[in-house]
């Protein structure tokens, strides 16, 4: 049954490619579309796991990923971006080459970490976990290097994509956790929406740098 591994690794690999694309993309709408694509691939990957592991309840997780993160959230955020009139903005991404190199380093590191630590686990779980960790770490890198509130949101949600990939790849992990992840995405969206709204209200910008000017501990 080697095609089982191949398909799931192929899908996970596609998600990783999306992560790299997110890392350098500087136009907001394009970032949003890449994220949507990543979420759709995630739902395919989760469906594949559901099918091959014989755990039909994972289809719920897949459906959540598809509908919420692949369709609903991108549409809401796109509307938001168009309303604010910032869809033409180009965010300056500093040091694309360096960021990409760090991203590559992170991907290699997660391979070495996971493959080294999971000698006892089945091969499918090992590779899937390694790729998921790479997606998580690249998402973190994106949140650190970007200064725009929107792209930080996207970075956070791509981390969640990696987490769901890891959770479904771990065979037999109970449903309670999958629900919780979906739940957390919902709450995260709520919180983020509130903040983006408030940031806009206060500063007329979603650039986080505007926030950094105000800090409580200055003389």
């Amino acid at each position, binding site marked *: 049954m080697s095609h089982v591994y191949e398909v799931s690794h192929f899908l996970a690999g596609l998600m990783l490619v999306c992560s790299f694309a997110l890392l350098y993309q500087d136009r907001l709408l394009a970032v949003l579309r890449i994220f949507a694509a990543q979420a759709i691939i995630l739902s395919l990957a989760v469906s594949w796991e559901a099918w091959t592991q014989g755990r039909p309840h994972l289809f719920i997780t897949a459906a959540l990923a598809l509908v919420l993160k692949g369709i609903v959230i991108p549409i809401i955020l796109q509307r938001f971006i168009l309303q604010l009139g910032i869809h033409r903005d180009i965010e300056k991404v500093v040091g694309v080459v360096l960021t990409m190199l760090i991203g590559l380093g992170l991907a290699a590191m997660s391979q070495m970490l996971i493959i080294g630590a999971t000698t006892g686990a089945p091969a499918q779980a090992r590779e899937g976990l390694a790729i998921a960790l790479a997606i*998580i770490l690249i998402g973190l890198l994106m949140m650190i290097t970007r200064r725009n509130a929107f792209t930080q949101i996207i970075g956070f949600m791509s981390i969640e994509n990696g987490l769901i990939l*890891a959770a479904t790849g*771990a065979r*037999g992990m109970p449903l309670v956790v999958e629900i919780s992840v979906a739940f957390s995405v919902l709450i995260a969206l709520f919180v983020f929406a509130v903040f983006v709204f408030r940031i806009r209200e206060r500063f007329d910008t979603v650039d986080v740098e505007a926030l950094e000017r105000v800090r409580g501990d200055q003389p």
Partner: protein
Amino acid sequence: MSPVVYAVIAIPFAFALVLVALPGYRLTSVLNVVASLATFFAGLVLLTVAGGVSDYFIVDDVNIVFIVLNTLVGFTAALFSASYMGHEIETGRVSLASVRFYHAMYQVMMGSMNVALIANNIGLLWVGLELATLITVVMVGLYRTPEAIEAAWKYFILGSVGISLAFFGTILTYLAGQGALGEGVNAMSWSLLHAHAGELDVSLLNLAFIFLLVGYGTKVGLAPMHAWLPDAHSEGPTPISAVLSGLLLNVALYALLRFKMLMSANPAAMHAGPILIVMGLVSLIFAAFMLYQRRDIKRLFAYSSIEHMGLVTFAFGLGGPLANFAGLLHMTMHSLTKSAIFYAVGHVAQAKGTQRIADIKGLSVSHPGLAVGLALGVLAIAGLPPFGVFMSEFLILTTTFARHPWLALLPAFGLLVALGALLLRLQSMLFGEPNEPAHAVKASSIPFALHLVLVLIAGLFLPAALVAWFQRAAEFLG
């Protein structure tokens, strides 16, 4: 397990549902206090029922300590919040609309912390802690000032990074247990993982612990992942600062301790103790020096929280019944004292209309009562006798000295540095020419007095029953 155990979760969530529907500040603030008191009693009841384990929940000596402390401070903070937020509404700092869901959120926050504390399933533990964090993010941003939004944003970004890493660590722990316990819910049950700790996959367990340490360590406020903590403490409403410092940090530390217990139950796994010792010491000494540069009174005490959580982490890292006992005691004393200080600081900030230390002068002349209270609180947290913090710090230092004499110098040094900073700041606020404006403060001093009396009693004499209880918990912590 007797169903009464679930009351500590059921009461807050049930009241939250009611509070969401109710308008008006007065009624909901009273109900909030009632709910918190009921939860506290439910927490006390846990002392009388025998511990038990089910698939999703566990009650043992360790988490009863945390739950009782959590519900007690939750109750006094609710009491303080009722009068404090009332004053904030009167002075127009917050609008009625923005505190519309404040009390419901407060109950959800308390409930989810209790979920985390009572959870036996490591996934549920994570869910509880995550929910509590998200709620506090919203509450930190309550004032909607640019500073509050920046603080909440930073808290959210760093908090979600911590959440993600902790979740990945949870998945790895599950995989580590899968070989011994099979697929499914068993491999996520903490008690089963602990019972079969020797059969867990060691390399996965080690890797998992690194992720959990960074993830939950962010929540504990360990340096260098502490950056969110001072901002969140200083910009949020003061009752929330008290809850953050007194409770949420503890709950995160509790999560870390559960995993440390798994590590120490497996002889082949790496030693978690030295890592905790180093992180604790770095946080302690770093925060002690940072205290000198603080200009905002709430940030000052936020850094003091980092310092004390560092010391507690250090004690638990040292391990063994004695150090664990001292660590538990210090954590309890710190929670009580620090939340008491935040209550006093809340009143001071309202009296002077500012949080800037430079603008708070001559309290002993303008508000003698407040000045005495603040002074007692600061002396207590600085570790001076006869308060309980002195006792627990003394225990930690002597235990360390008995085992690694040279190591004891480092925490002692950090504590002295912090003592200097706190006394310096206290002196500048208490004395000197009182400055304008000075408002009268009409607020309840009961929560503050209650905490300080408890800390004082603990410093003078620890009841034998309490000692026995903490000893059992410390024994179990390993």
